[in-house]
């Protein structure tokens, strides 16, 4: 049961650590909901529950559940000898996946370049950097994707996606 894979890389977080983090986050979420609910009356009036009633008790449920999960993580034997939850290798792969995704959002929403530009940049980055494709293939797929989305959403379905200065400069509306 307590065997550890010798070939696995350095442990980054044990299952217990991860459980504690998750429970703490849930606790914070529940507390936030309760605070939000307290802006309204949380009682049971003559016409039934008042606006804050449901959010308040739902927040309480989350808090109770989170405290329970926290105790389970700390004291129950369930995860005491569970293998590590995440090792350095896995964390690196996840980070490498999330980073370009974050770049997509920053490019599209914070620099306000729109979805099309961000999607081309994102696809190019991932294919060249992680997929190790050659430039022509990556260019073809990323621009092809943008073109397909453009035809499908703008022209056919008439659902405009977010556009930025590049499209305006190219005269695409």
């Amino acid at each position, binding site marked *: 049961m307590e065997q550890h894979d010798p070939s696995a890389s350095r442990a980054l977080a044990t299952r217990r650590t991860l459980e504690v983090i998750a429970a703490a986050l*849930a606790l914070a979420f529940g507390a936030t909901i309760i605070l*939000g609910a307290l802006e309204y009356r949380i009682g049971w009036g003559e*016409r039934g529950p008042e606006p*804050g009633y449901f*959010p308040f008790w739902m927040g309480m449920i989350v808090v109770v559940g989170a405290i329970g999960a926290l105790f389970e993580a700390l004291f129950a034997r369930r995860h005491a000898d569970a293998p590590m939850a995440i090792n350095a290798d896995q964390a690196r*792969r*996840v980070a*490498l996946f999330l980073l370009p*995704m974050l770049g997509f959002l920053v490019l599209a929403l914070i620099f306000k370049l729109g979805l099309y530009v961000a999607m081309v940049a994102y696809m190019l980055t991932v294919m060249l950097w992680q*997929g190790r494709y050659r430039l022509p293939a990556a260019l073809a797929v990323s621009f092809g994707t943008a073109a397909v989305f453009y035809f499908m959403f703008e022209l056919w379905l008439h659902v405009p996606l977010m556009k930025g200065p590049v499209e305006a400069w190219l005269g695409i509306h």
Partner: protein
Amino acid sequence: MDNIGDLLHGFQVALTGYHLMLMVVGVLFGILVGVLPGLGAPNGVTLLIPLTFTMEPVSAIILLASMYWGALFGGSTTSILFNIPGEPSSVATTFDGHPMAKQGRATEALSYAFLSAAFGALFGVVVITLLAGPAATFAHKFSSPEYFAVYFLAFACFVGLGGASPFKTLVSAGMGFSLAAVGMDTISGSLRLTFELPDLIKGVSFLVAVIGLFGIGELIATMEERLEFRGVHARISPRDVLKTIAALPSYWVVLVRSSLVGCWMGITPGGPTAASFMSYGLARRFAPRTGEFGKGVPEGVIAPEAADLALGIPGSATAAVMMGGLMIWGLHPGPMLFVDQKSFVWGLIASMYVANVVAVVLVLFTVPLFAAILRIPFAIIAPLIVVVCFVSAWTVSSSPFDLWLAFLFGLIGYLFKKCEYPIAPLVLAMVIGDKAEDAFRQSMIIHGGSLGAFWSNWLCGTIMTLGFVLLLWPLVSSALQRTKSPPASAGG
């Protein structure tokens, strides 16, 4: 029964070349909008309605109904292949459908989904044929307490003692209900849980949450394990489709029960999403292999799909748009249609039979095509799915905030997965939370704040009691088992 005569006349209307062509076009278009998460049947209907202004009302409704069915089929496809439900009602299909695809059984899972959906739909059409009139009057009996009772029943069916820690289930369901409460409170008009953020006023869309939790969360987890989709090297042959067809009859209990659930939830306007969850919950609870649910059992695909499509009465949003269409074509929706517009109504019903067959043939032929998507290298398909997720999140309400939310939900989904928090209670709570709360408070207002409202008549009381029975069933059955065989289950 002059229903039969009317129906035969209806078939004469439906079986013309022009109408068959409309069905094919409708189903194909429906599959497309269904495959794209975020774009659903309501959007599809909205987009098609302008095209139908110049058509005969019968032709128009045939086109729209076929599209609706195509959308539901399409929604299951992405649920199974990418764990991204294309339609809210296909969320439950992901629980077993996606594991099956990962095991290289994508063709099988897709075939089960389409066939059982078709079975459910045909079952529903038969029910409509027999009960068209009475069903409508029954639906009119529904008021707030009954609505609440139906949502309660759906939740009770689904949330039992799963494998997960009960605390984690509490956290998950509580989060879902809390998120559903964000935004405008429809009863009092107050803005709840918005924390002065203007973006939260419109609430947290359930679709955005699903896109993040399932689509992005799943991708992160896949990346971490460096698993490529295992379907990649699976042989995809039409023979698998045939084998599945041959195996389907052995699941007849699940099929019939799920179709009944679907019909019931169609008549009581609980909607396809609640129906599919409820049916999945029932299948899991009464299955001999309960523990294997969620790891890829055919029953887990069959149950939600059959319920999803039974009684093809489109979900509320789609129905609303279609109603709008009816008025534009100069028809007045309601029971009087059965008297005034006989050929329209029976043409529609007959076309449901035909469109069903058309849809199944079309999707079964394209199963190998869909399954082949899994052969695309992961370095291309993964970013492509990310793009589809973000674009879908955008189409929900054209709000940049939703994209950040989808990303955040992706991280939550990943953390949930790592720590074995169940995601399904969260999703179901988000779907029915708001409506359930509204129905509850409306009933309280009507009945002066007394909980007796839910047992004030036999219909509502029965549904509520059934809900409690189902909620407590796991406790009771495990207690019974313990008394029968005391030493068998030591520890846990």
